[in-house]
């Protein structure tokens, strides 16, 4: 339980930091302003809390990693779009007919971000596998010698 709470707060910290950085980039590039409204920071915090809660799906030991990834991805992308709709992010600086375009952009950006993260974790896992098996063989050899 303690580890799950730690995992939640770590996830919250990472998600909130990423969302603030992304917000700053969006505000400065699209809206050409160097300030972020307080209301947007609050909304980002709500989204970060929800994403961190969804992230706990990766701690469910009974689920296979493929299912964890799929559930995590679908819930997160759904939450981002739902929050965007509720908080009116897709209406920012654009007409209502552009909403679908913004939804698709946010979907594509998040999917790409998820894919890149997944590939990095996968690469690290391959390296760890080699190291662990080397150690295992050393252990077995020492036991038999």
């Amino acid at each position, binding site marked *: 339980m303690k580890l799950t709470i730690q995992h939640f707060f770590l996830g919250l910290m990472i998600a909130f930091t990423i969302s603030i950085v992304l917000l700053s980039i969006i505000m400065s590039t699209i809206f050409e302003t160097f300030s972020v409204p307080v209301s947007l920071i609050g909304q980002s915090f709500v989204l970060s809390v929800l994403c961190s809660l969804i992230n706990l799906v*990766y701690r469910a030991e009974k689920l296979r990693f493929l299912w964890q990834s799929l559930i995590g991805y679908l819930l997160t992308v759904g939450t981002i779009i739902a929050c965007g709709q509720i908080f009116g992010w897709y209406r920012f600086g654009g007409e209502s007919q552009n909403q679908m375009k913004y939804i698709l952009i946010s979907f594509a950006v998040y999917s790409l971000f998820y894919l890149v993260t997944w590939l990095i974790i996968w690469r690290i896992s391959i390296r760890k596998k080699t190291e662990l098996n080397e150690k295992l063989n050393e252990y*077995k050899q020492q036991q038999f*010698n």
Partner: protein
Amino acid sequence: MKITIDQSTAYEEVEISIKCKRIDENLEKLISGLRLYNSTISGKRGEKVYIIKLEDVLYFDTVDEKVFIYTVDGVYETVLRLYEIEDRFAETSMLRISKSAVLNIRKIEYVSPLLNGRIEAVLQNGEKIIISRQYVPVFKRKLGY
């Protein structure tokens, strides 16, 4: 290292004595191997009780509060609780790997870290067993990782 073997029909029991300046890591592992060789555990299959060498055990697993011994030759039931097995064979290659299992590390063919922090161990008989996230640090320490 000098090895002296004194073989005679006069001896009833095998006695191994080690003379050393100090016990180093390699010697500790050798002693652990000897303990494993010398250790046995009784297991019930059907109406018969068998004496099983610890070196033949792949792993111990709990199902419906009963503890079973898994070997290449078959499955046996033991009256010992999992924590008793863990304590009794603490200085051997037996290691607690989840709330319900104790694994003989020497019987692992190779391991694959899963992307959710757990490790999958493939045993010499091709069986796969999961090392839960909570026990992964202990497993790594045991290997000297």
